[in-house]
């Protein structure tokens, strides 16, 4: 027969267990924040001295004291802007098709879903090789901003699709069915009900994916991002360099002065990422208020 334990003993045990888990979770968050803090402090210490307006507005240079990042900063904005223009519409379109139109019981749908989830885990360099073969060489786009943006779009599409599907799934079926029951067409239901309600989730996923794309260097070397350019990109068929390329090159130089400007480049990169994520939060909050 089971021994009876009094209510108070059990309560004590539970409280103790509660304390232990609280401690474990607190330590995990403290460890991760500390690692991040060490990283940021280290970068700030090395880089803040070199970071000024000249650094942002100058051309890159072999003389570290004169070096700037303007072509790389603009290159990054061009490539990421174009990537957003390509990947977000395609991603949302795919998600709508898969979630609203596709027959979920068909083998095609299942195969597609598994594949998309798998693609999200493919190493980025593989996309670089694909981009080089298909966009740069086969389609003869050349090592341009467009080829870079197309490659990055492929890289982040799976993430955008998966997060958009989740956002669309989260729209209560009572509302969509209500709209359909009132005689609203399927298309108008999508544009007028589903998308506005799913926008916060879609935008959060998309912008986080874009932030990831912004930091990629490996696949971009493959598709033709270079280390040094003497001009600023002004069309999608221009050649370009990117912030991660400059940072990568500078950290591998022997002279210590390059390590410092690399750190300054990392700070700019962090600020850029922070701004993008901030945009994501603002968009999310605004659209959320509209729906609620």
């Amino acid at each position, binding site marked *: 027969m089971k021994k009876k334990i009094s209510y108070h003993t059990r309560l004590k045990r539970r409280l103790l267990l509660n304390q232990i888990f609280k401690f474990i979770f607190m330590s995990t968050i403290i460890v991760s924040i500390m690692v991040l803090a060490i990283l940021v402090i280290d970068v700030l210490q090395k880089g803040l001295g070199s970071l000024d307006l000249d650094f942002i507005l100058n051309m890159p240079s*072999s003389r570290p004291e004169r070096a700037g990042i303007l072509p790389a900063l603009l290159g990054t*904005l061009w490539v990421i802007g174009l990537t957003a223009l390509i990947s977000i519409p395609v991603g949302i379109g795919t998600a709508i098709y898969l979630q609203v139109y596709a027959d979920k019981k068909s083998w095609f749908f299942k195969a597609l879903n598994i594949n998309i989830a798998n693609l999200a885990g493919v190493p980025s360099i593989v996309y670089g090789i694909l981009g080089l073969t298909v966009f740069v060489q086969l389609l003869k786009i050349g090592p341009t901003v467009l080829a870079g943006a197309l490659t990055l779009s492929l890289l982040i599409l799976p993430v955008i699709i998966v997060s958009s599907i989740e956002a669309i799934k989260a729209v209560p079926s009572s509302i969509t069915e209500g709209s359909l029951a009132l005689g609203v067409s399927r298309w108008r239901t999508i544009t007028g009900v589903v998308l506005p309600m799913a926008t916060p989730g879609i*935008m959060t996923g998309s912008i986080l994916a874009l932030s990831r794309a912004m930091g990629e260097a490996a696949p971009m070397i493959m598709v033709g991002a*270079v280390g*040094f350019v*003497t001009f*600023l990109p002004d069309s999608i068929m221009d050649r370009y360099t990117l912030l991660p390329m400059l940072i990568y090159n500078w950290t591998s130089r*022997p002279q210590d002065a390059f390590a410092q400007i690399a750190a300054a480049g990392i700070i700019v990169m962090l600020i850029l990422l922070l701004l993008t994520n901030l945009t994501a939060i603002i*968009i999310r909050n605004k659209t959320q208020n509209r729906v609620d």
Partner: protein
Amino acid sequence: MKFSKILISTLIVALGLVACATPKTSLKGSIAIDGSSTVYPIAELVTEDYNADYPNVEITVGFSGTGGGFTKFAAGEIDIANASRKIKQAEIDALVAAKVEYLELKVAYDGLSVVVNKQNTWVDYLTFTELKAIFGKDATATKWSDVRAGWPEENIVIYSPGHDSGTFDFFTEAVNGKSGVIRQDSETVKISFSEDDNILVTGVAGGKGAIGYFGFAYFEENADKLKVVPLTKDPVKAAVTPVFATIADSTYPLSRPLFIYVNKASLKRAEVMSYVTFFIKNAKKLSAEVGYVSLPDADYTAGLALLK
């Protein structure tokens, strides 16, 4: 889509600001350069100075490695390929097949430096036979005592540049007789490869039994953390330490020339001709500025004569 709108408008404003500040000269055009990351610092510096004189020539310099550079060179994607070793027969064949005619120009010397840890008190010099005992394909030495009798039983740990670099090709050819052949990574002797030479510096500086090799500039900047090893091919002769003089006159056995390969068809374009001429004329001063050893004057004169 608000995000992209913000981006585009930022771009337009930024581009507008910059466009106002661009000066003008008559020579226009574009030049694409790629290849060795060892030659990259020289090419970058030359490009920067050239661009100060000719601001309307659009130049890109990449660093996808000597091998990667030649692939692009054969595909006609670039006008100039930087190389930290001589072109290989297979690469020549590819260029012939693609009907690309080229010009080979020497721009500077680099002394591939073999380095060990500062605490390594025993290594006074190494012969090529001993290097082969450490780096060779069938090398068996696992401890320093296996390399030369009397050295301590410290484990050997190897740091080497990655397989796509010309530095790796040159070193393996010089030491092991065949380019690309090196000892296998094993339980007993660990080999770490990295395309980033600063990681190799950190690795060698961090382990007492470590040995590695890379361009002279990386040793020079880290001379306080590393010990450079004098080398000799012939065990009877005295070993030579890499310094500017011994690298320049090639008495240092791992002294290697750095090249640029120019597409002859591209050379017909005025901007490419003017750029390459500028490169050779200024290579002496500028290669020294980034830590390489300049060629004897006669080599530069010969290079200029080739261009005519």
